[in-house]
C-alpha cells in the first residue's frame, strides 16, 4: 500500500513537471515588456569608459554613458551630431599651429541616480553634469593608474602628458598624496593646460597640432563625462564595487544588474535628457527623419518611428551564451531578437546570398553591411628579399605576388562570401573610398605576374642564386588547422607562379617576438576602424607608426617620405576635394609599392526577428539600441507558436522505464514473502 502511494506521488510529480515544463529562459513577468534580448559570448573586460576598448565593452557602456558628440543613426558616410554638447564645435586655429575646440554642454543634464552621490551625507541621488566632469574624464585618461589605451593618441591635447608625469611623480614621492581622494589628487597635480573649463558648461580643448579627428574621440566612450564621486566610491575596497563594474553614466540606459557571467540588464534612465526634455528635440534624442537610400525601403523611416522621442524600448537584456550553437538555437526559438549567423547553420539560413525561404517564412530579416575594416597580407619592408632594400627587384616581386591572390575566391572559401574585395586600405563608408577605383595589382593575372617575376630576376619563380624556386616565409601567429588551411590558400596561389612559400606558424607570443626582432617576411593582418576617417587606415603605413622600431601598428614597416608628407597634409584637413586628391596620391604610392596585398572588407550579416524594427547595422562600435523598437504582441504570439512542448515521448519513456524495473521489484517482493 505504501509503495502504491509512493508510485502515485511519483507519477503525479512527473505529470506536474511535464505540465509546467517550458523552454522559455526568461521570467514570466517580463513577457509583455519591451525588452531587447541579445546574447553575448565574452564577458566585458571593463565598464570603465576611459579604459574599455572592445566591442562587448562598448555595447554596454555605449548605452550607459552618453558622449559629447555621437553619430547620426541612419546617414552614411557617418555624420557627427551633438550629444551632450549643444553643437559640434569647429576648430579654431591658435598661434604656434595649435588648435582649439569649444564645447558647450547642454544645460540641465544629470547623471543616473547612484548611491555614490550620497557622499555629501544629504541623501543626494544625482547631480548635474558640468564641464568639470569632462575635464575629470580627460584627466583620468592621463592617469597612469587608469592605464587608458588612448592616452598616447589623446596626448595631442596640450599639457596632458605633463599632467600625467606630474601625477606619477607626486604619487611616487608622497605616499600620503596617493591616499587622497581622486579629485583632490588631480586638483593638486595642477591643471591640464589644454583642458580649460571656461564656465559651468563651457570647455575648451587645445591641441598642440591640427587634428580634426579629435572630434571622433568625443563620440567615443573614452571622453564620456564620469563623476568623481563614482570613481572615489567604487574602489573595490571593503566590499565596495569596482568602478569598472559599476558605471555611473549619463546615457539613455542605466545598469540595473551586472553579472557578467550570466546577465547584464539595462533599463531606461529617467534622468536622461531625452526623457526629461523631449521638447528639446535634441538630435540624439529623437528618431531621425532622414537616412540614406535604402533606409525607407528597409522600413527604417516608418512614420510610426520618425520624430519619436527616444528610447523606444524599456530596456536591454544581455544574456551570456558561451557556445554559439545554443545561442543560435535560442534565436530560432524566438528568445533572442537578433543574431549573427553561425557557420554551422550558414547554408540553412542563407541561399545565394539572401535569406533562405525557411527563415523568410518565419518573418526574419537579413541586414548586410560592409564593416569599416580591411584585411590584408603585408610584406615586411625591412626584409632584404621582399622589402625596400631590394629596390625595384623586390617591388616587382611584391607586385607579382599581389597579382596571384584572388580575394573573391578567398572570401568565398573562408568567409561564406561575406566580404568585398579590397582595392585599397580604405573601406566603403569612409571618406576616400571610391567604388569605381580598381587597383591594377588587385586583379588575378598570372601571366602579368610571371612577366613581373622575370623582370624582378626570378624567371619562372626561380632564384638564380640557388637554381630552385625562390623560398619565402609566411609568418603566422595562429597554429590552428583552420588558420593553416587559409594560409595554404595563399601558398598555393604563389606556387602557381613558381614561388616556394612556406608557412611558419608559431604561437602568438613567438610571432610577437619575431615582429619585435623584424624577423618576418609576409603576414596577414586586419584593422577595424576606431572612427570613420581615412586617417585611421592610412596611418597604418605612416613611418612613425613602424612596428619593429616604434611598436606602432605599421607592421609592414613601410616608409616612404612622399607618403609621410602627404599623410600629414591629409590628416590635418577636413573632408574636401583637396583631401581626396591627397588620398588618391597616397593610394597611388601604395598601389605601386605594394607593402600590402589588400584582401577584403568584411561584410556583417545580421539576422533579426520580424518583430524587431528600425535595425541598421552600425559598422562602428557605437550604441544604437535607443533607436530600436519591438512589437511585443507579435513576439509573444510567435514565441508561443514556435515553442509548444511535445510531451508524449516523456510518457512513453516513463512507461518503458517501469517495464524495465518492475520485474526486479516483483522478484524482490516475491522473495521477501
Amino acid at each position, binding site marked *: 500500500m505504501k509503495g502504491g502511494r509512493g508510485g502515485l506521488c511519483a507519477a503525479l510529480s512527473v505529470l506536474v513537471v*511535464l505540465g509546467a*515544463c*517550458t*523552454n*522559455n*529562459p526568461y*521570467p514570466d513577468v517580463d513577457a509583455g515588456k519591451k525588452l531587447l534580448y541579445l546574447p553575448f559570448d*565574452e*564577458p566585458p*573586460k*571593463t565598464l570603465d569608459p576611459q579604459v574599455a*576598448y*572592445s566591442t562587448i565593452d562598448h555595447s554596454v557602456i555605449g548605452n550607459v554613458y552618453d558622449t559629447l558628440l555621437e553619430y547620426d543613426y541612419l546617414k552614411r558616410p557617418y555624420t557627427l551630431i551633438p550629444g551632450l554638447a549643444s553643437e559640434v564645435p569647429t576648430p579654431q586655429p591658435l598661434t604656434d599651429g595649435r588648435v582649439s575646440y569649444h564645447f558647450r554642454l547642454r544645460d540641465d543634464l544629470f547623471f543616473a541616480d547612484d548611491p555614490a552621490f550620497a557622499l555629501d551625507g544629504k541623501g543626494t541621488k544625482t547631480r548635474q553634469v558640468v564641464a568639470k566632469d569632462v575635464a575629470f574624464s580627460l584627466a583620468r585618461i592621463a592617469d*597612469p*593608474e587608469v*592605464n*587608458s*589605451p588612448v*592616452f*598616447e*593618441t589623446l596626448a595631442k591635447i596640450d599639457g596632458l602628458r605633463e599632467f600625467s608625469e606630474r601625477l606619477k611623480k607626486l604619487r611616487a614621492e608622497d605616499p600620503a598624496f596617493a591616499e587622497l581622494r581622486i579629485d583632490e589628487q588631480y586638483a593638486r597635480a595642477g591643471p591640464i593646460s589644454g583642458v580649460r573649463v571656461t564656465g559651468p558648461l563651457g570647455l575648451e580643448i587645445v591641441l598642440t597640432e591640427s587634428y580634426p579627428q579629435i572630434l571622433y574621440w568625443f563620440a567615443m566612450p573614452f571622453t564620456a563625462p564620469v563623476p568623481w564621486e563614482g570613481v572615489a566610491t567604487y574602489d*573595490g575596497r571593503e566590499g565596495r564595487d*569596482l568602478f*569598472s*563594474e559599476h558605471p555611473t553614466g549619463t546615457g539613455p540606459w542605466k545598469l540595473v544588474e551586472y*553579472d557578467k*557571467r*550570466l546577465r547584464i540588464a539595462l533599463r531606461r534612465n529617467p534622468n536622461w535628457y531625452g526623457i526629461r526634455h523631449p521638447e528639446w528635440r535634441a538630435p540624439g534624442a529623437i528618431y531621425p527623419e532622414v537616412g540614406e537610400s535604402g533606409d525607407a525601403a528597409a522600413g527604417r523611416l516608418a512614420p510610426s518611428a520618425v520624430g519619436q522621442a527616444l528610447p523606444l524600448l524599456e530596456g536591454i537584456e544581455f*544574456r*551570456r*551564451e*558561451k*557556445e554559439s*550553437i*545554443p*545561442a543560435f*538555437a*535560442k534565436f530560432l*526559438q524566438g*528568445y533572442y531578437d537578433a543574431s549573427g549567423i553561425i557557420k554551422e547553420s550558414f547554408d540553412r539560413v542563407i541561399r545565394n546570398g539572401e535569406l533562405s525561404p525557411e527563415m523568410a517564412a518565419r518573418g526574419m530579416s537579413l541586414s548586410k553591411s560592409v564593416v569599416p575594416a580591411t584585411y590584408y597580407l603585408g610584406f615586411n619592408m625591412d626584409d632584404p628579399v621582399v622589402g625596400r632594400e631590394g629596390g625595384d627587384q623586390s617591388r616587382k616581386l611584391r607586385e607579382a605576388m599581389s597579382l596571384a591572390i584572388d580575394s573573391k575566391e578567398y572570401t568565398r572559401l573562408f568567409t561564406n562570401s561575406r566580404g568585398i574585395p579590397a582595392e585599397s586600405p580604405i573601406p566603403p563608408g569612409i571618406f576616400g573610398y571610391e567604388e569605381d577605383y580598381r587597383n591594377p595589382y588587385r586583379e588575378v593575372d598570372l601571366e602579368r605576374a610571371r612577366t613581373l617575376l622575370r623582370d624582378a630576376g626570378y624567371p619562372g619563380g626561380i632564384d638564380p642564386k640557388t637554381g630552385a624556386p625562390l623560398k619565402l616565409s609566411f609568418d603566422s601567429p595562429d597554429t590552428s588547422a583552420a588558420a593553416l588551411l587559409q594560409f595554404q590558400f595563399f601558398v598555393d596561389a604563389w606556387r602557381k607562379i613558381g614561388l616556394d612559400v612556406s608557412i611558419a606558424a608559431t*604561437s*602568438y*607570443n613567438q610571432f*610577437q617576438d619575431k615582429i619585435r626582432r623584424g624577423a618576418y617576411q609576409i603576414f596577414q593582418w586586419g584593422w577595424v576602424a*576606431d572612427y570613420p576617417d581615412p586617417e585611421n587606415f592610412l596611418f597604418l603605413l605612416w613611418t612613425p607608426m613602424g612596428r619593429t622600431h616604434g*611598436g*606602432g*601598428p605599421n607592421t609592414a614597416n613601410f616608409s616612404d617620405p612622399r607618403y609621410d608628407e602627404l599623410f600629414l597634409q591629409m590628416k590635418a584637413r577636413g573632408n574636401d576635394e583637396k583631401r581626396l586628391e591627397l588620398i588618391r596620391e597616397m593610394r597611388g604610392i601604395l598601389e605601386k609599392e605594394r607593402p600590402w596585398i589588400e584582401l577584403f572588407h568584411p561584410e556583417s550579416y545580421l539576422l533579426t526577428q520580424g518583430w524587431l524594427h528600425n535595425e541598421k547595422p552600425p559598422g562602428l562600435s557605437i550604441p544604437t539600441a535607443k533607436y530600436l523598437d519591438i512589437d511585443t504582441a507579435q513576439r509573444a504570439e510567435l514565441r508561443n507558436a514556435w*515553442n*509548444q*512542448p*511535445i*510531451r508524449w515521448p*516523456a510518457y512513453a519513456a516513463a512507461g518503458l522505464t517501469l517495464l524495465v*524495473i518492475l520485474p*526486479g521489484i516483483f*522478484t*524482490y517482493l516475491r*522473495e*521477501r514473502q
Partner: protein
Amino acid sequence: MWAYVVRRLAYSLVIILGVLFLLFVLFFLVTTPDDIARKAVGEKAPPQALEQWKKNHGYDKPRFWNREHPADSMLVDHFRRMLTFDFGNSDADDTPIWRRLRSGAGPSLSLTLPLFALGLLLTIPLGLLVAFFRETYIDRMGVVLCVLAMSISTVLYIIGGQYLIARVLRWFPISGFDPSPVVIGRFLAVPVLVGLLAGVGDSVRFYRAVFVEESGRDYVRTARAKGCGEARILVHHVLRNSLVPILTQVVVVIPSLVMGSILLESFFGIPGLGSITVDAINANDFATLRTMVYLGSLLFILGQILTDVSYTLVDPRVRLE
C-alpha cells in the same frame, strides 16, 4: 588516526608546492606576461599601455629570480599569494578573485549536488539490478548499454540533449541559468540529465563488478544456504559490505563538487566555478587559473583524506596509523 591525518597533510604540502611550481612553469612555458597583458588591454592598445598594465599587475618583475631583491620575483609572489590565500584580482578584469569564487560556488553546487545525489540513487540500484540478474540477458544487455554509454563523448551527450530535449521536444531551455528557486529546476533539468547519462555507464559497470565480487564470498554462500532470498542478500548484505570500494569512488569527489563541471557549465551557460576556469584559460587570466588549480588540488587531497577516514567509519577492522 590524527597522527595519520597530520602525516598526510604534511605529505600534501609537498604535493601542493609541486603543483604550484609546475603550474607556474607550465603556464609561462606557453605564454608570457606580454600575452597576458595584451589580452587584458586589447589588441589596439599601444606598447606604453601594455607596459603600464604589466607594472600595475606585477608582471614586470623577473620571472624566477631577482638578483637584487631575491624575495621580489613573480615566482615568489605566486607562492606567497597562494599559500596565504591572498588570491588578488583577476588578470582579465581586476575583479577580486574571492568575490568571483563566492559568486561561482552556488551555481556550481546547484548543478553538481543533484547530479551527485541522483547519480548515486540511479547507479547503485542499477548496479544491484544487473548484479541480481547476472549472467542473464538483462545483465548482458546492461553490459552492452553501459559500454555504449561509456563510448559516447560527453560533448555528444550535451549537444544531443540540447537538440532533443530543448529544441525538438521543447521541454526545457537550451541553456541559461536563474538562481531563483522557482525556476532554477528548469535550467538544471537538461544538464543534470545529460550529466547522469554521461556518467551512468562506467559507474554501473564499477558497482556491478563490486557487487558480483562480493556475491561470491563465503558469508553470501552461507546466507544462500540458510534460504535467504537473492534480492535480500544483495540489498542487506552485499551492498553493506561493498561500502569500502563505493566510498573510494564517492567520498573523494565530495569536496570537489564545489569546483563544478567545466563542460556542463560551459555548454549550458551556468556561471559556476567550472565556467570561471574555462574563462580564465581563454582570457590568459593566470591569477584566476592558478587559484582554481590550487583550490582544485587542495580539495582533491582533502577528498582523499576524507576517504581514508571514512573507511574507519564503515569497517571497524580498518585502523589509520
